[in-house]
C-alpha cells in the first residue's frame, strides 16, 4: 500500500506567541510536528505494519522543516519529501500549499493519504480536503478510527462529539482527529536510522510550477493577539434578580441582540 502523510512544522504548543512588526515572532521559538499530523503519522505506521507498504511523509516548508521530517522518519516513516518554498513564496495560503502537494502527488500511485485535522497555527483545516479535491479522490475529515479491508474502508468520524460511521474505498484521504491513536515516541534505533532514510528536497521548479500558479487566494490584512482576558463578574442576590441582571449585561455590555 502506498501511504502518504501530509505534515507541517508548527510552533511548539508551549510557546508564547509574540508579534513584532505585524508578523509572528519566530526568534528562539521551538518548533514541533503539528500534533494532529503526529496522529496521522502514527496511523500510517499502524496501517503499514498491518497491511504492508511504504510511507512517504511530505512537508511543504523551509530548510528548518527537515528536523520535523526527520522526526517522522525516526517514528517509522520510510521516506520523506520536503518541498522547500522558502525562496519562491512570500505569502502562501491553503490554496498554495494544497496546489503544491497535489502537483507532487498527481502522478504518484496513491492508496491512502493521511493528514492532520487542522494545523495548530493557522487552524484552517483546509489543506487535506483541498488536496483530495484536486486529486479527485474521496476524503473524510476528523477521523477517530480507520479500518481497511482490501480496498474497502470503514471510518469513524468525530462530529462535534458524536460519531459518524462512513464506508468508503481506496484511494482515500483522511484527516486525523485527537483520539485516533496514541502517537509513539521515536525509538532510539529509529532516531539513529532516520538520517540514512531517503529524504528528497524539491523546489517549485522541480514540480514545474510557476509562482503565479500557486499565488495565494487570500490576503492577510492584519495579525493581532486576542484581547487580554479581563476579570470576570460574579452576580449576587436572588436567582431571579441575577437572571435579570445577566440578561441586561448581555444586552448592554456583551451587545447580544
Amino acid at each position, binding site marked *: 500500500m502506498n501511504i502518504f502523510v501530509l505534515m507541517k512544522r508548527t510552533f511548539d504548543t508551549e510557546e508564547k506567541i509574540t508579534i513584532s512588526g505585524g508578523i509572528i515572532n519566530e526568534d528562539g521559538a521551538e518548533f514541533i510536528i503539528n500534533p494532529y499530523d503526529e496522529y496521522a503519522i502514527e496511523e500510517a505506521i499502524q496501517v503499514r505494519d498491518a497491511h504492508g507498504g511504504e510511507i512517504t511523509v511530505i512537508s511543504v516548508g523551509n530548510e528548518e522543516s527537515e*528536523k520535523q521530517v*526527520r*522526526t517522522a522518519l*525516526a517514528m517509522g516513516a520510510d521516506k520523506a519529501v520536503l518541498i522547500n518554498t522558502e525562496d519562491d513564496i512570500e505569502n502562501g495560503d491553503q490554496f498554495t500549499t494544497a496546489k503544491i502537494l497535489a502537483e507532487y502527488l498527481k502522478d504518484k500511485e496513491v492508496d491512502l493519504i493521511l493528514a492532520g485535522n487542522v494545523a495548530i497555527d493557522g487552524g484552517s483545516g483546509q489543506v487535506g480536503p483541498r488536496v483530495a479535491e484536486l486529486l479527485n479522490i474521496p476524503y473524510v475529515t476528523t477521523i477517530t478510527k480507520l479500518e481497511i479491508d482490501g480496498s474497502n474502508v470503514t471510518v469513524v468520524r468525530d462530529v462535534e462529539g458524536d460519531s459518524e460511521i462512513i464506508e468508503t474505498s481506496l484511494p482515500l484521504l483522511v484527516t486525523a482527529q485527537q483520539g485516533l491513536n496514541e502517537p509513539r*515516541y*521515536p*525509538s*532510539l*534505533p*529509529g*532516531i*539513529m536510522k*532516520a*538520517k540514512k532514510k531517503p529524504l528528497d528536497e524539491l523546489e517549485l521548479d522541480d514540480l514545474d510550477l510557476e509562482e503565479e500558479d500557486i499565488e495565494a487566494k487570500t490576503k492577510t490584512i492584519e495579525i493581532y493577539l486576542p484581547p487580554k482576558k479581563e476579570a470576570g463578574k460574579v452576580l449576587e442576590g436572588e436567582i431571579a434578580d441575577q437572571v435579570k441582571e445577566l440578561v441586561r449585561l448581555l444586552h448592554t455590555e456583551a451587545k447580544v441582540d
Partner: protein
Amino acid sequence: MNFDFTAEQEMIRRTIREFAEEEVAPGALERDRKKEFPLEVFRKLADMGMMGLPFPEKYGGGGADTISFAIVTEELSRACASTGITYSAHISLGGAPLHLFGTEEQKQKFLVPICTGETFGAFGLTEPSAGSDAGGTRTTAVEENGEFVINGNKCFITNASYAKHLALTAVTGEKDGKKEISAIIVPTNSNGFTVINNYEKMGLNASNTTELVLEDVRVPIEHMLGKRGEGFKQFLVTLDGGRIGIGAMAVGIARAAYEKALQYAKERKQFGKSISQFQAIQFKLADMAMKIELARNMVYKAAWLKDQGRPFSKEASMCKLYASEISMEVTDQAVQIHGGYGYMKDYHVERYMRDAKLTEIGEGTSEVQRMVIARLIGC
C-alpha cells in the same frame, strides 16, 4: 569549536524530554514517598531502545554516543533523580564494564540482556570497609575444580534486586604482598547469593540500593571479567564513564530545582510584587542559572572527550565534582526561595535537595574527585 548538537543528539533530547515530562515526572513524588521502583518507566524506556544506548547495535544497543547518554541521564534526572541514577548505573556500571572488558561470549550472554532491558545492570564494588580504597576489599574468590568459590559482602549496590547478573570485585590471590583483585560475573540467582533491599535512605527513595551477601557462591572460571588481577584497574576505567553519568544526573536535579524556583519566584507575591523582582532573589536565580550552564558544559566536554577516544579522567572527575557541588547549592537555594513551602514535600524541591546529596558521594566522594584531579595535574 561547535556547540551544536548533532541531528541525532537533538532528536534524542527532544524525545527523552517529552517522555520524561509525560511518563516519568508525574509519579516522581509518589514513588519517593512509597519507595517504589520505577519499573513501568523502564519497561517503556526498554521499548524505546534506550537501555543499551551507547553500546553497539550487534549487542542490541543503540550505537549512540556518550553525549547522548549525558542528555538522557540529565532529562530523566530532571523528572525523577531515582530514575536517573537507575539509568546511569544500568548503563555505565552495569553495561560498560561488560562492553569494555568482556569476551565476545560474555557480551552475547550478559551484555545483550542489559541492552534489551531484560535485566538491569549493576556492579558490585563497594564493601563495608572498601570503596575507593581497593586495599580494603575482603570478598574472596578461591579457585576450586574450575570454579570460583566466592565469599564476602558488598554494600550500597545500585539495581541488584533487578539484575540477573552483575560483575563484582574479589580478591583472587596475592602478588608481591599486595592483594590481587579481579572482576567476576555472578548470576544473582546463584546458590548462596542473597540480595538485601533494606536500606533506609536520605533520598533517591525510588532507586534500588542493596547489600549483597555471598556464601560459597560458585561460578565457572570463565566468568572472570577481563584480566586476572586487573579488577581494580578496570573498575577505575568504568568509574570514569560513570562520573559523566553522575555529573549529568546532578545537572538534571539542579535544573529541576532552578526551574521550580524561577517559576515560584515569578508567582509568589510579597510586599506588592512578585519576589522575582527583588534583587536578593534575582541574584540567587542568576547564580543558579550560571552554575547549571557551567556544570553542563563540563559534563558535555568530558563526554565529548570520551567520544573522541581521548583521555577524559580528569574532566570526568571535574564535571562530577563541580556538578554535584552546584547541585547541592542550587537545590538548597531552591528550597530557600520557596520559604516554608519549600520544606513541604508537595513542592518537590526538598526531594531534589535530598537526592542531590548522593551525587557528592556516589561513584567517588567529592574528596576522592579532588584526589583524582590533584594526581592528574601533577601533584
